[in-house]
């Protein structure tokens, strides 16, 4: 009988019975709670004069956006938008402070910003733009094609994305979906906290046995070189998956609690940060994919941390390597001219959890089919994770108890 269940139970108990693990987890939740709605703190100043609070501004804008929800971004709406913006005096230095903006244009600001992004217009050009539904959608396609060019996409990839673009219907319907946008935008600090939590809590799962001198008892047991290794890996992976899920749920919960959970079915094209992503997804689906990818990344990182700790036999060195890798991921970019290297770097677990990497347009063409990053990278992580775990077993199995 291999007693895997019993050993797994005790390994999980060993991890979660450590008070610092709980303290770290609660701290992470606290920081997530501060960071996700962080944009709403404080006041808005112009020339040192307090104009409004960010929260009140958000409430007003939310009201306007919810009023626009359900409307198609079509010729009728575009004409309304440009008529409203046309009322702003041309001579106004800061147009947002004018009465005309606040009364007529502000309710349409989301659509106006969408037009500016899609057509890549500066303020002056946007103010002078003639509303044309077809031209707007054509401009978006053109902008997107230009981006593909600068990102060194191959012809196969461009063809793939064009097919995806064709699947998206026009005109797109606007929905208020700030809850999902904020959840996705907040994924970078959440991801960093998840990786930090995994690194801190799991790098002593194996090393603890050596520092506590329980390795002699374990390794001399019948299952001490085989089953216990997998029990530890399973325990580490489950704890990190559950904690990543809880942190992801908290982040989304905080975002939806503050910004609302409306707009799950809104097209990604109306998102302020991901409007150029050509895969036919909704904002809600993108949010689930982003956080799902984060959880898979956390699981993969947990395997790396566990195996590294056993190879190095030192939890402090393991933590130092992990923190160094996370910092490197934050600070260094590889220029896109070196596409393969940049793609590999962006798909590494210290960078992948950022939404712009989960939803980047670089694909992996395999036998003529292009796999997008959120499809292929988690699959790679699962396969590599298993490979690393299998390779790491020999480090545990062959550990020699000596020098004491």
């Amino acid at each position, binding site marked *: 009988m291999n007693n895997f269940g019993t050993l797994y139970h005790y390994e999980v108990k060993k991890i979660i019975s450590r008070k610092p693990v709980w303290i770290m987890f609660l*701290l992470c939740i606290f920081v997530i709670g501060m960071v996700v709605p*962080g944009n709403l*703190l404080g006041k808005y100043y112009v020339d040192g004069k307090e104009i409004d609070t960010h929260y009140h501004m958000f409430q007003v804008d939310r009201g306007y956006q919810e009023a626009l929800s359900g409307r198609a971004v079509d010729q009728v709406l575009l004409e309304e938008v440009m008529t409203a913006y046309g009322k702003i005096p041309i001579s106004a230095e800061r147009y947002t402070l004018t009465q005309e903006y606040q009364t007529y244009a502000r309710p349409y600001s989301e659509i106006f910003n969408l037009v500016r992004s899609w057509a890549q217009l500066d303020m002056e050009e946007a103010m002078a733009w003639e509303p044309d539904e077809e031209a707007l959608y054509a401009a978006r396609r053109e902008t997107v094609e230009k981006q593909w060019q600068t990102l060194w996409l191959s012809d196969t990839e461009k063809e793939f994305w064009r097919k995806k673009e064709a699947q998206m219907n026009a005109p797109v319907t606007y929905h208020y979906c700030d809850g999902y946008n904020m959840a996705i935008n907040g994924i*970078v600090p959440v991801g*960093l906290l998840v990786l930090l939590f995994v690194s*801190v809590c799991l790098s002593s799962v194996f090393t603890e046995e050596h520092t506590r001198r329980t390795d002699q008892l374990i390794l001399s047991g019948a299952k001490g070189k085989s089953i216990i290794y997998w029990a530890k890996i399973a325990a580490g992976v489950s704890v990190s998956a559950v904690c990543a899920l809880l942190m992801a749920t908290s982040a989304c919960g905080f975002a939806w609690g503050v910004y609302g959970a409306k707009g799950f079915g809104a097209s990604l094209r109306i998102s302020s940060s991901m409007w150029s992503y050509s895969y036919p997804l909704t904002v809600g689906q993108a949010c689930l994919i982003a956080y799902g990818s984060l959880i898979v990344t956390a699981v993969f990182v947990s395997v790396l941390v566990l195996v590294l700790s056993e190879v190095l036999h030192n939890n402090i060195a393991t*933590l130092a390597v992990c923190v160094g890798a996370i910092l490197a991921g*934050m600070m260094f970019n590889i220029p896109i001219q070196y596409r393969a290297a940049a793609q590999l770097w962006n798909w590494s677990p210290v960078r992948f959890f950022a939404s712009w990497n989960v939803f980047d347009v670089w694909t992996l063409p395999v036998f003529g089919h292009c796999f997008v990053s959120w499809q292929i990278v988690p699959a790679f992580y699962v396969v590599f994770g298993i490979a690393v775990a299998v390779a790491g077993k020999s480090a545990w199995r062959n550990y020699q108890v000596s020098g004491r």
Partner: protein
Amino acid sequence: MKQKLKEELLHVFAAPDPMCKRDFLRELETPGMSIPMFVFSQIGYIRKWIWGLSILIFMASVVGAVCFSGEVLWMISAMTPLLALTVVSESGRSDNYEMAELELATRFSLRSVVLARLGILGIENLVILSLLLPIGVWEQRLGILQSSVYILAPYLLTTFIGLYIVRRFRGREAVYFCMGITAGIRFFALLGQDIVPQLYQQSRFGWWLVSALMLGGATATQYFKLIGATEELR
């Protein structure tokens, strides 16, 4: 010839066996170690990597000032928690390596050892921070006071939390978790102004100043509590 004569003389006139040697030696006043000598001797027992890390932090800040001059304040702010970590790791060293019981039973007991080492590192950190401040202020539109607070706050927060953890959860695990907390504070110091820019508004500086002062007080409290905890074996 002379050597041979010496040897012969030694052989013929052998000195008698000493009597009451130990009593006689105990009567002599032997110079003890003064407190400044003791403190100075502790410098050699502070681990080399701590000095190395401090130098590395300083050099990294200089390089940062040259290469990323716009971001150097935040880079320094993210590196000062590492300086704090050196203090925290030294404070828990006796417990980590189970030397506390031996060190408590000596003339310059554990309390003196900890005081001396933390004092030395405190002075060293003060020197490093003083050198880092002009680098952090250079090419920043923020004033000296504001820059100092943004540099000191993560340092004080790390020291406060670290000393609390080391005192409360003893052993290697405590220092290890301090590393985790330090990493978290470093991430926030580096990314904070991008993630939560409202916290760095001019209007919020008062809160920063008050927080820094409170953290300073809390850190001092933790120091005293830590010193108090070294008076007996836990």
